[in-house]
């Protein structure tokens, strides 16, 4: 029997390029390093024998030296051996980071407990036998775990046998969690792996904590790095106790801190108020400055409401760690706003222009967008001129 931590998809150095603010981008990246200390603490707390990283320790096969040094420094703080296979993000092969002199040197000096498993052959780690399935290129058309089936199981002894692999499984189809899957690659036959010769299959690539079968689990990423799908549980590690020939005991232990929230609001002119309310609600737990929100807005807004909504969104976009906006709203001047522009008895030009814009807006759909923007601008200029005139 052996107890170990199963984790994956640290993707250290992930750029989060969708986050516009460089400072916030850096904070989110840093959070993935900080979460490693929580992994370390769990390892101590659970007194595990070792830690398995099922691929994608780094986000890129060419991380910078700074990133490598930082990562190895933190891994060096983990008090037990750490076994890692290359995933599709940090795949092995010629010239890969695992062979880079700097990596090798830093690893020896600062993370002697880290052992990259770059070959597909059994590795006896004392309490268990690890069957690593490293990815040697980003997309491998074959099953990286296929070699396991050809093993002479009898030769492996009576230690728990743990397959360490990275890729998608038939269980959740060919739409795994990788954001850059380009076809049926790295497909692992998890069902076949879960035979009597294997005691646990530690999988990586799916970023949520997921049981694929009685012996196969995705641990998910240790710190949430995207907006989770419904039911997906990122931000955990799996604490596994495996026995030769027995069923594994798997426990999800939370290690993530950031809140990633997808919020959809379908509203009219109450959109600003609802935004305020719902954003405050979802960020209440982690705190607004530790939250990233994907806000989807829909509905029809008046010009005034639009302006107010813009103000609310601008405020939240600066307060939150990131606010991704999918704005599907349509801004349409309200009847009152149209009257305010068109029925200006003393201002015939403004009124005439506004009336013409309304006519265009209601006519050719191709021109309507521009006309809507124009009437929005006109509305703004009128407000400015009105305020200046007061």
């Amino acid at each position: 029997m052996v107890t170990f931590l199963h984790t994956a998809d640290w993707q250290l150095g992930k750029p989060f390029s969708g986050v516009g603010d460089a400072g916030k981008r850096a904070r989110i990246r840093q959070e993935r390093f900080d979460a490693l200390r929580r992994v370390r603490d769990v390892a101590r707390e659970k007194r595990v024998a070792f830690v398995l990283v099922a691929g994608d320790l780094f986000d890129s096969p060419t991380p910078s030296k700074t990133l490598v040094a930082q990562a190895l420094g933190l891994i060096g703080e983990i008090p037990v051996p750490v076994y890692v296979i290359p995933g599709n993000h940090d795949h092995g092969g010629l010239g890969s980071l695992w062979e880079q002199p700097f990596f090798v040197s830093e690893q020896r000096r600062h993370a002697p407990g880290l052992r990259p498993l770059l070959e597909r052959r059994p590795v006896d780690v004392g309490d268990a036998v690890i069957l690593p399935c490293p990815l040697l290129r980003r997309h491998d058309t074959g099953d990286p775990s296929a070699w396991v089936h050809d093993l002479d199981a009898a030769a492996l002894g009576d230690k728990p046998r743990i397959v360490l692999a990275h890729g998608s499984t038939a269980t959740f189809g060919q739409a795994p969690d990788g954001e850059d899957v380009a076809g049926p690659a790295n497909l692992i036959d998890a069902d076949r792996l879960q035979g009597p010769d294997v005691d646990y299959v530690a999988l990586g690539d799916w970023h949520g904590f997921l049981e694929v079968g009685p012996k196969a689990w995705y641990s998910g990423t240790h710190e949430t790095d995207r907006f989770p799908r419904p039911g997906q549980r990122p931000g955990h590690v799996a604490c596994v106790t495996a026995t030769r020939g027995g069923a594994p005991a798997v426990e999800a232990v939370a290690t993530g801190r950031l809140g990633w929230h997808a919020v959809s609001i379908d509203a009219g002119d109450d959109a600003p108020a609802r935004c305020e309310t719902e954003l405050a609600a979802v960020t209440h737990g982690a705190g607004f400055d530790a939250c990233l929100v994907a806000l989807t807005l829909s509905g029809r807004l008046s010009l005034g409401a639009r302006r107010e909504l813009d103000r609310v969104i601008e405020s939240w976009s600066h307060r939150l760690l990131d606010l991704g906006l999918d704005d599907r709203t349509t801004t349409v001047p309200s009847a009152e706003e149209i009257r305010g522009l068109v029925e200006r008895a003393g201002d015939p030009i403004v009124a005439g222009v506004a009336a013409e814009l309304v006519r265009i807006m209601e006519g050719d759909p191709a021109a309507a967008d521009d006309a809507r923007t124009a009437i929005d601008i006109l509305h703004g200029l009128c407000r400015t001129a009105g305020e200046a005139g007061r």
Partner: protein
Amino acid sequence: MRLESVTLRSYRIHAETTVAFDPSRTVIGGPNEAGKSTIVEAVHRALFLRARTSGALLDAMRSSVHPGPPAVDLRFEAEGRRYTLVKQFTGTNSAPTTLVEEGGATLRNEQAEERLRDLLDAEMVAGQGGERRLRMQWAHLWVWQGVAGHDPLEGEPMERPLERLSRRLGGLQEGDVLESPFDAAVGAAVAGIQAARTKAGGAPRTDSPLGVAESALAAARAAAAGARDALDALADAVDEAERSGRTIAESDASLAARRREQEDTGRLLEEVGRLEILRAHEEAAAKVASGRLGALEDADRQILASDETILRIEDRRAPAVERHAAAVLAEQEAERRLAAARREVDRRRAEHDDVAAIVEIHRRAEHLERRRTEREGLAGRCARIAEIRARLSGLESRLAALPVVEAADLAALSELERKRDAARTRVDAIAARVELLAADAPVTLGGVPLGPGGSETIGADTDLVVGGTRLRIAPGGGTSLAEARRLLDEAVASLEARIRAAGIADVDEARRVQPQRQSVASQLDAAREAIEGLGGASADADLIRLDDEIAALDSALARSAPPGFARPAGLGEAIAARVAVEGRLESLVRESSTAAAEVQAAERIRADAVDERECTAAQVRHVEDELRTATARRDVLVSEHGTDRAGAIAAARLARDEADAALAGTVAALSRLQPDVLRQRAAMLARAVEKLTEARQAAQAARTVALARLRTEGTVDPHDDLARARAAERAAEAAVAHAAREARAHALLARLFAEKKREIEARFVAPLVVRVADYLRPVFGPDVQVAVDHADGRFRSLVVARPGAGAPPVPFAALSGGTREQVAAAFRLAMAEILAPDHGGCLPVVFDDAFVNSDPGRTGAVQSMLDLAANRGLQVIVLSCNHRDYDPLGAAVVELLSPGQRASRPPGAGSPGGA
């Protein structure tokens, strides 16, 4: 507002003049200086100039002939009431102004001015700049002299009236179609944003949001491309490393196979090498045997050929020897002939020398004779010179005997004689004659008594005593006689002194002697010239020298003449003898030339004979050389190869056949091994090994380079860079889309604002341009159109168009002078018509000589325009020198008189009256 009447008192030329205005049409006529303009100026000043005004304005209003301050009484109707305004321009603060409202209050001074300002909606002018501000009051209604053709939209005076017009037009619109300040502010903001964001052609400015977004997108795309390239370079490096690894493995396998093949081929090539050496030896032996046989056969052939050659040479030798003998004989004959010719030449040369010596003797003899002849002539000249010298001596003696009176002396004597005679004549002319006719007392003259009948001529002061009376007679009246006598004495003395000096008795002698001296002197000169002509002093010496020369020549001739030489008798004989021997000499010269030519011919013949002899000798030598050579060669061959040449040849042939057989066996063995194919294969294998080695090295190098490239610097993460670059590109694309939509919206707004503004402006000016066109229709016809721009509260660009005439619209400034007057008048009338409702429905419009440039043909049309204005309620007042021109207008006419006319009228008839 309508003017009713005005009275001017003590205002410039007007002592007191009253003019009554017709409610609609008034024409004020009168000659120049009648004060027409002064009337309307006075009305204007009464209305707008404060009475306390002083300075230049007041001075200009004062009368130089009529006492008292200028004053104006004006009656007018305004806002339905009638007023009487009285202003006395005293230039003091207490200047009286009274405004009396009929049936109402009487206002005075400041109150009156204030009320007036309200009624007229104008400024009451006083103080600094009064003249300029005065001109700005009702400038649209008062067409002063000289401004009728000005653009009514231009100039400071028209600014306020046009502002009023603008306001009034705004009031005329149905609804609010005038651009509001809010419209203007928003429009300006729209235009400002559009101008700030786009260039003239509509393209976005680089600093506009769209321009910035597009620049950012371009930069982001470039960055993404760069990041992609960097990543591709890494992927390429992986590919290259894998590819080169495969190449190395494949090269190693192929190299091993090729090297095995090389070993097999090498063994076969060694056998080939051994056989080739053997073949070389056998080839050499066969070659030697064949050479021995060939040499023997060749020597045999050569010996036979040499025998034949010797025979042929001997055949050629005999004729050559014969030709050489003939040539030797010919040469000897030529030598003989040449010697004879040369002897003949020598003989003739000796004879020539002899004759030439005789010719020289003859020439000397001829020269001697010539000198003798010359000597005779010189002796004759010497005798002649002696004769002339004897005559010269006689003449010199004769000249010496004559007194020395030269022509100059004679001229001087004659001059002195002439002066003496002149002095004497003067003395004689001054002398007086005294004749005593009768006396009763003794009379003495000059102390010499003078009796009756006696007379005396006196030439000097002489006392005349008659009895006790003494008289002094002074001839010539004073000292002149004495002076004349002194001059006479001097002349006589000078003459006599000169005569004495010349050694003659008198002047007449001089006149005789001087020609004689001259004659003798001439003869002396002639004799001397004759001597000089004959040789003069040198002639005798020449004669002596010639005698010496003749003696010497004679002696020399005697020495050189051959015995028997007959001296010629005289020059003629000498010349004849010399010519005769010279003829002989020339004949000898010609004969010598002929002999020399014969020698040359003989020399050429001898040279040809020598050449022939040498040539034939050379031929003989050549043939003999050939014969010797051929004979020697044959002798050598015979000595080398002996006499049993056939046996030697047979033995050599056998040896050659054996060597050839051995060689053929070796060649066959080599052929079976195919050495060329073997060598080609060996070369091919060597090449293949070389190429494979090179390929392996290149692959090794490429792999090293690729692996080095994969060992990145590690300062950046190219995957990270690309992810960020892609995100930046997407963000930039979104920003461009957003900015483009905004730019289109701004452009749309700017276009709509401009269109709406133009539409409103056109509607705004419609009442004005319709009225202006109404007034111009009598002048330009029914199709006339007028356009005026109105933007930002200002009128601009008055344009007249006549589409019927097919002419393009014409801006005001481009119209002719007369047309400008008419268009400006129409504009002013239209303005007045539009503004009249603010003044009780009527306004006066004053035209002071306002149509002076108008075509006489348009006078009627202009009057129709004015009549239309009157019909529409305006009060038209026209000032003209020719008021009869306005008769068709049917206006009330006020005719002012000139100052002269006014003076001739009876007192009390001053006021011109009125309509």
